[in-house]
């Protein structure tokens, strides 16, 4: 039983940065913008988040630094891809390269420094409940925040008027523009939200997951977050399932190796990705036809006046 609890805890921790980053990107893509710079924004968020926490001694301020850093990075993207209508794919890739370099520069002075990681919640009585106590009442704030975040995004997208308008921009920017909605402004906000989330997801790594800073510590998680958005077919509910599935397969394959299950480790390491592909195929077969991707995703919009 203890082992089960330990596995669930590890899965939650491994899934949280993916869930946060992917939720942000989902909103960005729903507005019709494809920002492939998630990894770059995350990694800068990691460097700035650690710097903030180290300088102030506060995890909260560190997280805030991460959010601001991610947002600033996304503004560079917005300026290029929305303001100057440059190709979104190329801009996003460039943003990642820029981010990797920047994070090394920002973080250079902090390599090898240590901070006290984010505290885990502890409610006497509740947290001590066997099996589920620590899982439900003993996590760090990031884990609870990630769940609240994705729930709020769902509510925003499907239950509010601004959410409807945002989705309209993503599905048909010409019509949205004709109806008088400021497409570019809405998209800019969506891109900034995506950047803020990516920055926070990056900050989670040095603040809670592995409390130290080393260049390159995101190790491709931004790309997985991007894949998860496609996996979820742009729906928040499925995004949660996808993120936890990915985390679960990652952790379980490590345990399977420890138990000596006789499957090659290379295959096991590829399992999370294989699972993603399989689910994607199943989803696309189950649909009644037509793509669920926002129709205007990745297309440049230049309003004619």
């Amino acid at each position, binding site marked *: 039983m*203890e*082992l089960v609890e*330990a*596995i669930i805890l*590890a899965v939650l921790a*491994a899934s949280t*940065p993916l869930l946060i980053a992917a939720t942000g990107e989902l909103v960005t893509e729903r507005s019709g913008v494809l920002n492939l710079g998630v990894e770059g924004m995350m990694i800068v968020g990691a460097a700035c988040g650690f710097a903030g926490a180290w300088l102030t001694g506060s995890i909260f301020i560190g997280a805030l630094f991460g959010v601001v850093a991610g947002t600033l990075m996304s503004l560079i993207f917005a300026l290029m891809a929305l303001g100057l209508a440059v190709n979104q794919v190329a801009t996003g890739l460039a943003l990642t390269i820029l981010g990797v370099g920047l994070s*090394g520069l920002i*973080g*250079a002075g902090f*390599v*090898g420094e*240590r901070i006290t990681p984010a505290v885990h919640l502890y409610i006497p009585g509740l947290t001590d409940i066997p099996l589920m106590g620590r899982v439900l009442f003993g996590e760090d704030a990031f884990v609870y925040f990630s769940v609240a975040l994705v729930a709020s995004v769902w509510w925003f997208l499907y239950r509010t008027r601004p959410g409807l308008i945002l989705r309209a921009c993503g599905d048909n920017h010409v019509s949205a523009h004709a109806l008088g909605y400021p497409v570019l402004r809405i998209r800019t906000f969506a891109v900034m939200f995506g950047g803020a989330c990516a920055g926070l997801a990056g900050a989670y*790594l040095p603040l809670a*997951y*592995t*409390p*130290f800073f*080393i*260049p*390159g*510590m995101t*190790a*491709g*998680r931004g790309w997985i977050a991007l894949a998860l958005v496609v996996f979820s077919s742009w729906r928040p509910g499925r995004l949660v399932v996808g993120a936890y599935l990915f985390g679960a397969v*990652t*952790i379980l394959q*490590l*345990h399977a*190796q*420890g*138990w*000596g299950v*006789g499957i*090659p*480790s*290379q295959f*096991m*390491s590829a399992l999370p990705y294989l699972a993603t592909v399989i689910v994607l195929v199943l989803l696309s077969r189950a649909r009644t036809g037509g793509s669920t991707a926002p129709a205007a995703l990745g297309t440049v919009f230049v309003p004619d006046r």
Partner: protein
Amino acid sequence: MRKSLRALAAGLLLAGSVGAASAADKLKVGFIYLGPVGDLGWTYQHEQGRLALVKELGDKIETTTLENVPEGPDAERAIEQLVRAGNKLIFTTSFGYMDPTLKVAKKYPNVHFEHATGYKRNPNMSTYSAKWYQGRYIQGLIAAKMSKSGVLGYIGSFPIPEVVSGINATMLAAQTINPNIKVKIIWANTWFDPGKEADAAKALIDQGADVIMQHTDSPAAMQIASERGKLAFGQDSEMIKFGPKTQLTSILDTWGPYYVERVKAELAGTWKSEDTWGGLDSHMFAMAPYTNMPDDVKKMAEDAQAAITSGKLHPFKCPVVGQDGKEVECKGGANLADGQILGMNFYVKGIDDKLPGK
């Protein structure tokens, strides 16, 4: 051909104009690094080696480094750039630079190259690496003494001979202390992903391992072991900051002495192409201080280190018995031959796991 000649001419002109003013008679030494010097692991230790070199011969040489050079075609450009800038001795410090280094070496016979951990050489290209398995043998002894559960946790990067020989050396040593010792092996299939390394350490500890060893590069596993009150070994560099009560010792890549020796040879004009595979005796690596263990264990470790250094103790002393129960053919006389260790692709008896790909 004409193109490269022209480029060479341009490079020489450039190198001449830059170099003439500052240091006409200083030897220029170049370094190509895989990661950032702040990675606290592999590249960081090469940078420490360069700093030792500068400290020792700084008035006679001028060093240049290129960080974050990806393995592949980019490496070739970077190495060539160093040649054109007038570097006469160039160290390329990762396995994946092997072919690019060889290509550039063939193009510039008057420049000397040194490639770390590779096996291809040229009259102007040497290779160098270290017998880290010796350090892992010492770690195996300590681990078996310190483990209460009798289960060791081992995080591997990729199932390549260097890593496999490390696991086997650890296990052979541990068995001399506790014949029933178990080792749980998790392959991360990456050299560097702190999050995944941490997850692997968590999984090993949750499954009962109480001493964690790693052949991946970040201090994440050390930190998890520290959090959970277990013991661990560092890798590449000193990681005791991340586990003051956790680190037993660490294998330290100390390239400094080698770099000094090779540059001295270059300065003296005696440099020639060689293959160096040095161990504790030639200071190609070192062991971090033995900490967090009782005095008798410490003494045992120090004695083993002395015996390995003097050549009295060899981790792969014949007979070595493979997982299938059969004795491994002993090609080196009393010990396995270097070639057998460099190409090791089997587990020794007592490892209750399957080598991936076997």
